[in-house]
């Protein structure tokens, strides 16, 4: 039983192949080959950020965002959102013209444009260089703080998990099971490099199997 609190960031962390993505796909309603129940309020709006940006290459950045935007999402809302993720200049471009980092920003903006009740993020920052990934993580926090929403993020990166999580769910493979659910009380905004190192050291001591490689 995994309980996700409203307007909190839950991070599912575990090694590759332990079923994190599958769990997220089940929550998103993309996979119905499972037993058990997912209780999400009916007609909840979902924003989903995949591992790859998955933008429509034949639509401009603006059209990609507008396509999924919530009813009542105005041009002004779009400008503000684009501005907050740093893609204001990219709106008339096609996704193919963007670098992976920029495309990820667009995917992030798209997920927020649905005004989601539930925001799902599937390893949204993999295969980016560490500096870009870190900028995007801070950006995610910034945008998310401004538009608080229930969020579930999946990652295998321990530092990413520690930076973002309110609630940290540790998973282990074969068979997939929850090792522990940790709560991190320090607000995300105050987690600097030193704080993250401290939390990491503490978790490494208590869950060596989960944090040794991360």
């Amino acid at each position, binding site marked *: 039983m995994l309980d996700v609190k409203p307007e909190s960031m839950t991070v599912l962390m575990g090694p590759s192949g332990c079923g994190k993505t599958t769990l997220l796909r089940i929550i998103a309603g993309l996979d119905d080959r499972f037993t058990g129940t997912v209780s999400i309020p009916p007609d909840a709006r*979902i924003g989903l950020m995949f591992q790859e940006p998955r933008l429509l290459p*034949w639509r401009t950045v603006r059209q990609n965002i507008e*396509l999924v935007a919530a009813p009542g999402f105005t041009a002004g809302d779009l400008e503000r959102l684009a501005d907050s993720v740093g893609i204001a200049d990219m709106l008339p471009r*096609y996704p*193919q013209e963007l670098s992976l980092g920029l495309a990820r920003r667009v995917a992030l903006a798209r997920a927020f444009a649905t005004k989601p009740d539930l925001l799902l993020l599937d390893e949204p920052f993999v295969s980016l260089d560490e500096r870009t990934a870190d900028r995007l993580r801070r950006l995610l926090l910034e945008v998310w703080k401004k538009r608080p929403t229930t969020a579930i993020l999946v990652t295998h990166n321990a530092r990413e998990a520690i930076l973002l999580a309110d609630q940290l769910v540790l998973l282990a493979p074969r068979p997939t099971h929850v090792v522990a659910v940790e709560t991190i009380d320090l607000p995300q905004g105050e987690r600097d490099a030193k704080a993250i190192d401290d939390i990491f050291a503490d978790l490494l001591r208590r869950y060596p199997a989960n944090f040794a490689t991360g």
Partner: protein
Amino acid sequence: MSVIDARELPLRGTRTLSGPLVSVLSVAGFLLLWFVAAELAQSRLLPGPGAVLQYIYHEALHGDLLTELGITLWRVIASFVIAMVVGSVIGLAMGEMPALDRALDPWLIVLLNLPALVIIILAYVWFGLNEATAIGAVALNKIPNTIVTVREGARALDPGLDEMARAYRLSPLSKLRNVTLPQLQPYFAAASRSGLSLIWKIVLVVELLGRPNGVGFELHLNFQLFNVTAILGYTLAFVTVMLAIEYLLVQPLERHATRWRNKPV
């Protein structure tokens, strides 16, 4: 170590003949070849380009050429639209539903291998010598080809974008318009490319066998009179119309549909 030889550069420049110029040269070469052959033959059965162009000019001003071209063009367009719409719907359905694909595949193979002439004759025998039968018979000849091409496209649809559409709860119509159809665009282009040329050839046969007008009817008439000038005149005139459609309509449309591609990163 690599050395750039400056003397190679001008050579490279000579290869960049612009596209339209090459096309014009190519057409001029064909006309020249035709002219020489006609001069050598000196026969009523091989008139030169001058005689044929004169015939076209005369028939366009004083004869039925433009009317007949218009009638044939209308039949081509009607058959083409029917074949593309029906073929695309069936092809997309077969590509997305394996059960339907298995059920209809034998029909498709039969239809693909049925000679155009058989379809036309049977259609005329069963449904009468009328306009609807003529257009339907032509469309039926093209439909299986469209189905096969579009089905291939439907099988190649990106599952990642499909998931995106489902996760974001796009309506079926919105998904079709924004996700599915753009992915099928190259397949539509391929089907319509081969479709136009196939259809206009079959329209001539349909006209020859059972219509009192159109380019096919005129060809038949002039064949009986052994009037090669008229036959070449009608052919040339209609080929010109089809070329104009290709360059002025099909290619600009295609460029518009694929404008998102090949943008520099």
